[in-house]
């Protein structure tokens, strides 16, 4: 049952006579409410006693709150490619210089 206010009444068994109510029950999310009718209809002392069990709630499955990508903080793959190319150029160039120098001697 969805959380919210529910109108409930007690009807005598086998009749349409409303013995109690209707009473407003404010049912909170994450609770189970059990309402008992206590007393005697013929003695006209029927009343309600409620038992509320709380702590049955759960959290939502997730919080989806962005589809634009403007706030993305990750590093784009192309920057890693650029860094890799930089390292290759450095090593390649260095090796070339080194072989040129030893070759001249």
């Amino acid at each position, binding site marked *: 049952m969805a959380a919210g206010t529910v109108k409930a009444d007690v009807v005598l068994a086998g009749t349409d006579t409303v013995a109690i109510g209707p009473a407003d029950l404010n049912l909170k999310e994450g609770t189970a409410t059990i309402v008992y009718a206590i007393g005697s209809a013929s003695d006209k002392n029927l009343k309600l006693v409620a038992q509320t069990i709380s702590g049955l709630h759960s*959290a939502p499955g997730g919080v*989806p*709150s962005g589809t634009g990508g403007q706030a993305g903080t990750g590093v784009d793959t192309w920057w890693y490619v650029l860094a890799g190319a*930089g*390292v290759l150029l450095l090593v390649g160039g260095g090796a070339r210089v080194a072989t040129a120098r030893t070759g001249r001697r």
Partner: protein
Amino acid sequence: MTVRDRGALAAMAAGAAALTVATLVACGSRPAEDVGADEAAALAGATPTRTASAAATGDSAGVPVNAGALPAGGATIPPVRLRIPAIGVTATVDPVGVNQRTDEFEVPPSVDRVGWYRYGPGLEADGGSVVIAGHVDAADQGEGAFFRLRELDRGDTVTATGDDGRERRWRVVAREEYAKTKIPLDRYFARDGSPRLTLITCGGPFDAKTRHYRDNIVVTAVPA
């Protein structure tokens, strides 16, 4: 100096430049680190009130006895307006629930509005986590109300106005970033523990294929 030499030196210079630029970009785009994670966790684990009251009354049996009254219309005070001067946010707050289809938090579709979890505590609560979530951005609407949420820092002030017109001030104690698969949502949607305000949005790396962010940014504030 030979032509070969010059070419090699040029290659080295280009390589060094490329490496420097890539490193700078990588460091520059690194998100701010989490702050106050321990404090946020401690707020959730506050002593349950039931054991405290049982001990106080000397109830040796330890069985809680509750009145059998009908569940009363609890006076929940929903927040209607949220103000965060430090990041220039003034947003209308809508009461929202859970999307029946996806089982996820129903963040208001308009990026200028933020959503308060109406099943959790409202501003009247003396315990539990008041949750407000908003968009960081949207593909069709641009920057959202919580675009700069990750810039909030400890000590910043958040003001929430209830539908009773009263302003309540909160002080930021923590900012955390979690992968959406690992975020302890039970803790942030808890209805017990110390009173706290939890602000949630998206963050971290963006996956352009699925059009989703990998992480959630969570800011926790306590009554100031």
